[in-house]
């Protein structure tokens, strides 16, 4: 079962885990990414393109499904305005085999950082606000998957 969602509502990790998996899979790997309050950040805003963003997530999910034997895959990305501590992204990958669940989860979170159409704006306690520039480190990690 593949489930992909782009939503402005808060991500409910426990509910997503329950929906992902009724308990039958051998191994489930997950990744939860949260907004960090580094440097006095008070708001993270994620702009998105409804079609491009959803297509990007669906394409990534399909790539993971082709590369590994997955029994279930959940990919939820939040967009809009978020506060520190809020969950931005949730990846859940289940397989009969732990190595495949772990590899798929890591692949997905690395690729999400570069391949999906999202734009970040950071706002700080001192009133500064700026769109984030592309980071080379994300590209380095994503490039490992060839």
């Amino acid at each position, binding site marked *: 079962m593949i489930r992909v969602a782009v939503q402005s509502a808060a991500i409910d990790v426990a509910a997503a885990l329950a929906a992902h998996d009724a308990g039958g899979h051998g191994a489930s790997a997950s990744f939860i*990414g949260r907004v960090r309050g580094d440097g006095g950040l008070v708001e993270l805003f994620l702009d998105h393109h409804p079609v491009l963003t959803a297509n990007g997530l669906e394409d990534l999910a399909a790539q993971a499904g082709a590369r590994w034997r997955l029994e279930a895959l959940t990919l939820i990305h939040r967009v809009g305005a978020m506060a520190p501590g809020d969950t931005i992204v949730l990846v859940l990958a289940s397989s009969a085999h732990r190595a495949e669940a772990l590899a798929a989860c890591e692949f997905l979170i690395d690729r*999400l950082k570069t391949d*999906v*159409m999202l*734009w*970040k704006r950071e706002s700080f306690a001192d009133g500064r606000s700026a769109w984030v520039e*592309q980071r080379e480190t994300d590209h380095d990690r994503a490039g490992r998957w060839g």
Partner: protein
Amino acid sequence: MRIAYFAWVRERMGVAEEMVALPEGIATVGDLVGWLAARDARGAGAFAEPHRIRAALGGAMVGPEALIGDADEVALFPPVTGG
């Protein structure tokens, strides 16, 4: 045709999208970006550095050489900054 803007391109243009009738001679995405940069001050602010602009036609990423043809939407935005 609709042009949709995202992130700082949207902020500099002051609108999320607009409907335009393409003038004669504007065939590619690169042509469109050049035309918007020359059209007014907002366009100059958003599109002064075309190498920082990315584009999508009908839901697919394209380069500046892509022909707009009869696309419903051209989306213009900065490089993505991830999830």
